[in-house]
């Protein structure tokens, strides 16, 4: 991959270190009698400036992996890193700061605080940190996402697609090391999905943004640079430069 533009991140992470990685990550739920191993020793790396899709059937552990790597959930054992920061060593305040300053999130639904306008939602991480928002970057993002005329609206006055795009803007506004997207198009129609995915793709290509997206949609995964396949809490396969067909084929193979 060639750099078409200087990456916006000025973070301390040297290019040789992946944006995030997991080492032998294990997560179990339940008590002794009925232990569910949601993650069964996952080791995986997510390269910087890359758009990675994580796929797998329900219960494969893809969401759990994301939660553990993003510091939302604590693994039973193993390590997870954002850049060179092992997140298991962080206390709640450290995790909060990590999420606020170095990670962006887009979820399937309920991305926005209902009482705040779109603009306020987008600048929320900066407001929480008490830092200034890069106005130019803000204007660029909302322009690219086509929500410039929606900024003063509350979430309940916006369509699902608009809400997701506002969430996208919020995830990117702080130029995080990594954006975690958890089924970001799960609730969207195909047009909105395509716009959203195209935007994510562009942000990787043009701004060198690192993105990890959990999805079960082959068309969505095809926008990624690399697809990691999970099954039963383990990485079972991966695919570089995926297409819809290659992803579908791979899934079929894993499913059988």
């Amino acid at each position, binding site marked *: 991959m060639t750099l078409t533009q200087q990456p916006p991140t000025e973070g301390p992470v040297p290019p040789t270190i992946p944006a995030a990685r997991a080492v032998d990550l294990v997560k179990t739920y339940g008590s002794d009698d009925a232990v569910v191993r949601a993650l069964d020793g996952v080791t995986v790396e997510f390269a910087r400036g890359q758009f990675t899709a994580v796929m797998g059937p329900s219960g494969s552990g893809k969401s759990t992996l994301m939660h553990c790597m993003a510091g939302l959930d604590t693994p039973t054992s193993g390590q997870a890193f954002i850049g060179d920061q092992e997140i298991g060593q962080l206390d709640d305040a450290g995790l909060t700061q990590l999420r606020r300053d170095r990670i962006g999130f887009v979820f399937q639904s309920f991305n926005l605080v*209902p009482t*705040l306008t779109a603009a*306020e939602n987008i600048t929320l991480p900066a407001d*929480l940190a008490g830092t200034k928002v890069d106005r130019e970057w803000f204007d660029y993002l909302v322009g690219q996402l086509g929500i410039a005329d929606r900024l003063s609206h509350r979430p309940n006055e916006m369509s699902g697609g608009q809400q997701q795009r506002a969430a996208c803007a919020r995830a990117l506004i702080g130029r995080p090391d990594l954006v975690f997207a958890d089924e970001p198009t799960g609730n969207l129609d195909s047009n909105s999905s395509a716009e959203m995915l195209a935007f994510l793709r562009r942000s990787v290509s043009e701004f060198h943004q690192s993105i990890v997206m959990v999805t079960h949609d082959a068309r969505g995964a095809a926008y990624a640079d690399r697809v990691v396949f999970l099954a039963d809490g383990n990485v079972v396969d991966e695919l570089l430069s995926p297409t819809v067909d290659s992803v579908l084929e791979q899934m079929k193979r894993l499913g059988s």
Partner: protein
Amino acid sequence: MWKVTRKGLLAHKLRLALTAVAIVLGVTFISGTLVLTDTLHATFTTLFGHIYQNVDFEVRGKAAFTDNSGGGGAVRKPIPDSIVSSVRRLPGVAYAEGTVGGYAQFVAPDGQAVTTGGAPTIGLSFDPNPQLSSLRVSSGHGPTTPNQVAMDAGTANKYHFHVGNRVRILLIGPPQTFTISGIVTFGTADNLAGATLAAFDLSTAQHVLGQPGHLSAIDVLTQPGADKAQVQRAIAATLPPGVEVVTGQTVADEATGSINQALSFFSTALLVFAFISLFVGGFTIFNTFSITVGQRTRELALLRIVGASRRQVFRSVLVEALIMGVVASLVGLGLGVLAALGLEALLKGFGITLPTGPLVFASRTVIAALLVGVGVTVVSAIGPARRAVRIPPVAALADYRGEQAESSRRRIVIGSVIALIGVAALVLGLTRPAIQLVGIGAVAIFLGIGMLAPVVARPMSSLIGRPLARLFGIPGRLGRENSMRSPRRTAQTSSALMVGLALVSTIAVFGASLSKSATSSVDNAVSADYIVSASGNGVGGFSASVADAAAKVPGVSATSTVYNGEFEVRRSLTNLTAISTDHLSDTVILRMDAGSGGPALAAGRLLIDSNTATTKHLAVGSVVPVKFAQTGTSTMRVGGIFKPNALLGSYVVGDGFFLAHFNRPLPVAVLLHTGGSTAATTHAVKDGLTAYPNLKIQTRAEFQKSQQAQVNQLLGLVYALLALAVLIALIGIVNTLMLSVFERTHEIGLLRAVGMKRRQVRAMIRSESVILSLFGAIIGVVVGTALGVAFASSLKQQGITDLVIPFGSLVVFLVLAAVLGLAAASWPARRAAKLDVLAAIAAE
């Protein structure tokens, strides 16, 4: 984060308003009380300052007792009027005139005595020197002859008396008729805080007020330019022992001081109820914040995900409470001023015309109101804020199932410990007795029980809901299920009502016991057939000639006159009762434990009741040092010990002894023995005493009833003050139900979609409300009954001899709580029934 908080506040205005009402009402109560008492304080200070501004010195008897805790100012011995002339002769003295004060009560044109509702009926001498007199003549002129009187403007206006009218006045001696020479005001006020004033010229006053040859005090004016300190020393040098000279300022300060003492008692009593309201309000706020934090779980978790720290989340909840507290307190402060005006008008309506003055809005009132209002709100929100902090970020995700494993064992332990500490504090406080400990104990008990209530909420809701389910069918059953769904919420919602009803029940038990004790104490204290006392709440006395008049009534075979006074026993001021020693057994029941009754009294011995004997370690034959205002220090021998008697109190002497040691005391009661009370004897007694319209003539049964009525009147007042707390608790229920309806929009829509009628939706919400109310009410009544029993039992020595649990009243409270629960549900129920089915189903 501030933005999130502010937006959140704006988005939930209704919820906030409902929650804030609790604080608004409590703060209104507090600030109203403070504004009113500050205003009264300032007005009286100004008033007394005006009255005494020209008086340079006052010569008066020294305070008789070192212990002046009794209130109403020190007891002073009258001084001989010969002192006036010796003071006048001193160089530097421009003017000196004696003053006399005592009992004088007007008789209205309809023949009824003018009563004041508690304030004294004052007779006094009129000082013609306007510089010295506290009275200002507003029409006519001051009294100058023995048959003239000046009347206060308050009485004159109320009963339409004019200058030149004749008016009968009840005095310590037989009643007399006077001509009104003038109408006077007390300073600028129509009367002195409701007291009536009858002013006579000095020598008439000395005569009719029972102090011939004596004065209460001498007011002195110095000559311009005189060295006041020197004049004061000169006056002091001429005075006999036991007489002192003080500055006018000192007198004004003392007068203000004793008024303030009364005011502070009044304001403390009101503030106690204000704090009760706020305490109940605190429960409501705690509950509302708990529910809203619960409802905002996903939102708060999302904030945590995008980078809000725990501290920020905690602060956002507290800031929300802070803002609410500030706004509510400010509103309450404003309403408090209005409430003060209203209270003042109310007092005026009762005939207590207060001197008029501008409302005093002290900065302390603002500080106290804000501090308490904001404090209660923020402290109540701390628990919910801590819960908000514990919400994990993952809770924002759709598939997150919250761990409901709230450790109920921890709750039980902590709740039990707090409740037990409360019980211990209460018991200690009652036995001490220390009223603050009792209060702390009660608060701890309520908090502890509030924590324990969730444990029993589910089974109790189920039980209470059973008949409702039967009555209303499916809606009733759903209401019951809803109330069982979240035991914690059910318990929290009803805990405010629990506190309110607990207090009401406490008062009910206490009051019923007091009332019963009052009845039986009359039975055990008085054998007379008629009790003659002063009308007007039994305050003050009446003419000493009543007993003689009563004795002349045909059919009256025995009379006993009862006096009350104060004396010092072993240097502590206490009440003393005196009773005629003749025919004692015909009128009073005196059961002796030791020594003799009547003979000991006749011999000038002291009788004490058995409680006093025990606590003071006294026995028959003990000699105690005593001090009387008029006659000074001496000793008395205990002649007998009697069983506690409500009429007689702790210390009793014979009337002969009493009259020898007190200056013209007024009787407080005359007991008549007629050998039974028939309509004819009642008629005869009333006929014989028509000259004294200020008397209340009651048969023993009527006397009992009036004692009970007094208790009931007091209870009524307390209930009225507690009603505010119950109201706040009900607003809490309305609030919770509204939140529940909002929370269950989707569910209600579903029920409507599958065919539930609007009426049934309403029935469902109402059932839930009734269960919530009854749950709180039942716990409250049980706790309150226990507290009431504890209070009543602890006061056994103080005369609450009978313990009565008024089951009827308690059942009425429960029914009332259910009805109020129904009422509280009406708005939320209507709101739920009006939900648009489609929109409700679409709601997430």
